[in-house]
């Protein structure tokens, strides 16, 4: 029997269940716990927090979690891999070490550096990196002066290096999401970069678990067949040295792991399935063999990879204007007709004040707002939620919109309510700009205390 390691994921995004990682530690054996806190534009928020306060710029939720579980982590020798370091892994480590010290615990924490290229953007453009938009081909010049953050999705070998150096907690900024699970496998099994199929298997395993409970019965088409969703178990990878692995969850937890729950997640946010690009490898998702073993266990084998690309993906965020949205509930006879009138009134009144927007939206929630003509609209509905939104580069205009929602409760048709939480205010739009950079220009570094 070959060596097996158990890698759990307790956090699919910033805002996921705060108890899931605690339950993974408490309810059964795991060797590694991965925690993802970074969406594509999260780093821009952190970058701005850091500009205001030099000791900010990381995921505070992570520090609160570690405070709850640190004695258990040490007792059970569970290693934690997270991108919670954001744009300031040093400060995140300091906060963790302070907690450890206050509890009389000695712990080694590794940080990974080199992903944050915000301060080097000018240098890179002077040496000829064009950072043109990977999806649209647009020139970087159009947003150059509005950039909030720029981070490279760096490879997963740096996670393995931090573990090699004895770190019990590895704090990264922008690494690939699947890399959080691949890193420990590289460390444990000594996989090399040219063992492409093994690296591909570890990447696929990380892809399946990166969204937490979405492979264990969450967001599942046959939701009514999932037992005990209230206590849904988060996923665990049982990774073998051979690259074969099993997706499962703790015994006794709720949820469901079967061929379909895992297949659905394999296809989540998928582009060309024959060429899934990560910093470490390209994975052919049409190669794998999937076997439902029953008892909430799905085995995956035969994963094939292709050579990694010579570039890293850069995640750039930039200021793209302002937006606001507000909603009202319209009830009673002819609810939809009244809601249409309310929308008309608000748009007309704004137009009368000279407010024309770069973009605006009118949605009738409850009346196929997500699916358009796919559903037949019933003649009579007794309640509609009207949701209006605007977007513009002029902040004052967007705020003016927020002041035009509530008057209609008294000066429009009857049965209008549900205006709570004050006037909608202009929010900055932080947009995402994907680009590429040659790998040889990025130097990563690992620092274990």
């Amino acid at each position, binding site marked *: 029997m070959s060596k097996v390691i158990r890698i759990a994921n307790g956090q699919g995004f910033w805002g996921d269940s705060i108890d899931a990682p605690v339950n993974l530690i408490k309810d059964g054996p795991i060797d590694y716990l991965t925690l993802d806190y970074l969406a594509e534009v999260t780093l821009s928020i952190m970058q701005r927090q850091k500009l205001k306060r030099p000791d900010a710029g990381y995921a505070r939720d992570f520090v609160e979690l570690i405070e709850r579980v640190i004695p258990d982590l040490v007792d059970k020798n569970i290693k934690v891999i997270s991108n919670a370091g954001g744009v300031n892994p040093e400060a995140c480590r300091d906060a963790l070490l302070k907690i450890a010290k206050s509890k009389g615990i000695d712990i080694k924490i590794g940080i990974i550096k080199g992903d944050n290229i915000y301060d080097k953007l000018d240098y890179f453009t002077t040496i000829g990196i064009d950072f043109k938009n990977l999806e649209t081909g647009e020139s970087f010049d159009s947003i150059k002066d509005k950039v909030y953050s720029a981070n490279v999705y760096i490879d997963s070998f740096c996670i393995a290096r931090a573990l090699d150096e004895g770190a019990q907690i590895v704090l990264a900024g922008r690494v690939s999401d699947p890399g959080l699970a691949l890193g420990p496998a590289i460390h444990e099994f000594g996989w090399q970069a040219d063992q492409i199929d093994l690296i591909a298997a570890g990447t696929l395993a990380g892809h399946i678990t990166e969204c937490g409970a979405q492979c264990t019965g969450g967001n599942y088409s046959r939701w009514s067949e999932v037992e005990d969703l209230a206590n849904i178990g988060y996923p665990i990878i049982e990774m073998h040295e051979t690259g074969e692995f099993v997706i499962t969850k703790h015994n006794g937890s709720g949820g469901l792991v079967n061929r379909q729950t895992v297949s*659905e997640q394999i296809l989540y946010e998928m582009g060309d399935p024959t060429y899934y690009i990560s910093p470490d490898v390209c994975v052919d998702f049409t190669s794998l063999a999937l076997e439902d073993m029953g008892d909430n266990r799905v085995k995956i084998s035969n994963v094939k990879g292709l050579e990694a690309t010579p570039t890293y993906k850069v995640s750039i965020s930039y200021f*793209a204007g302002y937006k606001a949205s507000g909603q009202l509930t319209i009830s009673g006879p002819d609810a939809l007709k009244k809601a249409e009138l309310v929308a008309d009134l608000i748009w007309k009144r704004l137009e009368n004040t000279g407010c024309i927007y770069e973009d605006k939206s009118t949605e009738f929630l409850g009346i196929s707002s*997500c699916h358009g003509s796919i559903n037949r609209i019933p003649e009579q509905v007794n309640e509609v939620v009207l949701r209006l939104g605007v977007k513009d580069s002029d902040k004052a205009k967007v705020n003016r919109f927020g002041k035009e929602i509530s008057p209609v409760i008294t000066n429009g048709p009857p049965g209008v309510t549900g205006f709570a939480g004050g006037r909608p205010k202009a929010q900055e739009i932080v947009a995402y700009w994907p680009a590429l950079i040659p790998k040889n220009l990025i130097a990563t570094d690992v620092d274990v205390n």
Partner: protein
Amino acid sequence: MKIKLQKIAHARSGDKGPNSNVGLIFRHPDIYNWARKIITTSLVKSHFGSVVKGEVKRYEMDNLWALNFILGDSLGGGGSESLLNDAQGKTHGQALLLMEIDLPKKLKVYINE
């Protein structure tokens, strides 16, 4: 017989920049092999109507009995730039399962299997 895809398939959707993707997964290879011929990009495009403003692409995954559809320009710009309630296309999978198709008699055994 006319049935909705929800009787024979699973779906999951999410965002890819300004586009969404829908993975459509069947529970048996017989159904997949039939559906592969029937559920074309043009059928999906017309099903979604004004929701999908761009083109629809399709990839086949024989190993998972699955089709992956990319719905072009379906998110009102996508990500943080979109004003739509479903800015990430989280509900597009459920929408595809509402598609009505004519299922051959010999495949009836797989309904709700």
